[in-house]
C-alpha cells in the first residue's frame, strides 16, 4: 500500500486486493487496487477501503442532499413525476437516470391533500434529492423549494406572483388565478440556489 495523501493518477497501483477493498475512485484490476481518477489516496479505515478523492471535476451523479431543478411530467394525487434537468452548482450533464418522483407527504411541511393542487405539467421545480439510485425521490418541503417557473393552464403564458393574496400566482395575459407550491424566489431565474 502506498502512503496516504499521495497524489495518484488513473492506473497507479495504490494497494493489493489482500490489503484493501476497492472504494470510490479505485478499482480492483486482477488483484491490484488502482486509482481510477486523478486525486489524493486515502484509506477508509471503517470499511477497509482504498479511496481516491478526485482533484478534477467528475461526472454528475445524483446524491441525497443535492439541490436539483426539474420539470413536471405527470401529476397524480399522491405522486408527482419529474425529469431532473440540472444539479445546482454543476455545469455538466447528469449521468444515469433522471426520472424522479415527489411523494405527496414530501411536497410541503404542511399537509397536502392532492399533489394536483400544487403542481401542473410543465412546471419547473427546485427540489432536494432524498433518495438516489434506481428510484430517485425528491422533496420540495422548504422555503427555497417548490415551483420556480410555471405556465397558465388556460393560455400557457408565464405566470407571475399574484399581487394580492387571493392565490399564489396570476396570469398577466388572461388574469386567471392559480395555485402552486412556489419557492421563495419564484420567477427570478436562479438556477444554482441551494
Amino acid at each position, binding site marked *: 500500500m502506498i502512503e496516504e495523501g499521495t497524489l495518484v493518477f488513473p492506473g497507479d497501483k495504490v494497494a493489493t486486493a489482500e490489503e484493501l477493498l476497492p472504494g470510490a475512485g479505485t478499482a480492483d484490476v486482477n488483484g491490484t487496487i488502482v486509482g481510477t481518477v486523478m486525486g489524493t489516496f486515502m484509506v477508509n479505515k471503517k470499511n477497509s477501503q482504498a479511496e481516491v478523492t478526485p482533484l478534477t471535476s467528475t461526472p454528475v451523479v445524483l446524491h441525497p442532499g443535492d439541490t436539483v*431543478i426539474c420539470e413536471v411530467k405527470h401529476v397524480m394525487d399522491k405522486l408527482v413525476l419529474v425529469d431532473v434537468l440540472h444539479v445546482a452548482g454543476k455545469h455538466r450533464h447528469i449521468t444515469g437516470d433522471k426520472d424522479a418522483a415527489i411523494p405527496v407527504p414530501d411536497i410541503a411541511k404542511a399537509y397536502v391533500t392532492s399533489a394536483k393542487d400544487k403542481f401542473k405539467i410543465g412546471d*419547473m421545480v427546485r427540489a432536494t434529492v432524498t433518495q438516489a439510485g434506481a428510484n430517485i425521490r425528491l422533496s420540495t418541503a422548504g422555503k427555497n423549494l417548490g415551483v420556480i*417557473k410555471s405556465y397558465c393552464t388556460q393560455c400557457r403564458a408565464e405566470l407571475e406572483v399574484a399581487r394580492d393574496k387571493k392565490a399564489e400566482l396570476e396570469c398577466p395575459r388572461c388574469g386567471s388565478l392559480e395555485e402552486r407550491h412556489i419557492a421563495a424566489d419564484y420567477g*427570478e*431565474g*436562479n*438556477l444554482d440556489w441551494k
Partner: protein
Amino acid sequence: MNISSIKKDYLYRLAKQGKRPDGRATSEYRPITIERGVVNMAEGSAMVSIGNTTVLAGIKMDLGEPYPDTPNKGALSTAAELIPLASPDFESGPPRENAIELARVVDRGIRESGTINLEELCIEPGEKVWVVFIDIHILDYDGNLFDACSLAASAALLDAQIPNERFEMGENRPLPVQDPPISCTFVKYNGTIVVDPSLEEDEVAEARYTVAVDKNGDIRAMQKGLSGSFTVDEIRQSIATARQMAPTIRKILEG
C-alpha cells in the same frame, strides 16, 4: 426539456437593472487576443479569443478556374465548422444553416470591403486563378461567433503567403490584403441591447445584429438575425457604437 427558460428569467431580471451576467456594461467588449501563424501547414492562420470564445481560422490556396462573370479575379470561399469539440450543442456532420449563415456573413464583410485584391490573384484571365479558402474552426464557444470568426478570418488573411513554391511558380509572397472590415455584433433581449454577447446572452437573444465597418467608418456588410426585431433608432445606435469600437479592435487586429 431544457433549462434555458430559467436562464432567461435570470438575464431578464439583470437586464431590468441594466446589468449583464458577467458584470459588463451594455457597450463593453470582452478582451481580445490574437495569435498569428499557429498552423504550419496553412498558408496563413490565426487563433482569436474573445473572452472564453476561441476560434481558429486557416487559409489554404489552390489553383482553379475563375467564375465566368469575373474572369480576371481570384476566387474566395469561406466555411465555418461548428465542431462538437466546442460545445455540447454542436453536432458533427455537414454544416447546418447556422454554420452556413455564419460563414456567409464573414465572407460578405471580407468580400465587400475589398480586403483581398482579387485581381492580383489572376494568373491567366478566364483560365487560371488562385482560389482562397478560409476555413474557420470553432474551438471553444462562449458566445459571439460572428465577431470572433470575422476577426480570425481577417487576421489569418493578413498572415497568409501565396504558396508559389508548393506549385513551382517561384517564391512565396504575401497575399495582397488590406484594411479588413471590423465586425461588431449586438443582441437584444427584453428590450436591452448588448454588444459582444456571451453564451448566456446568445442563448436568450431575441434578435441579433452584425455590422462590419471599414477603416473610414463606412458600412460594408450587415446581418440582422433571429425572430425578434429592432427599431430604426436601435440600429442607428448600434452602428454608432460599432464605429466607436472599431478603431480599438482594428489596432489589435493589425497588432
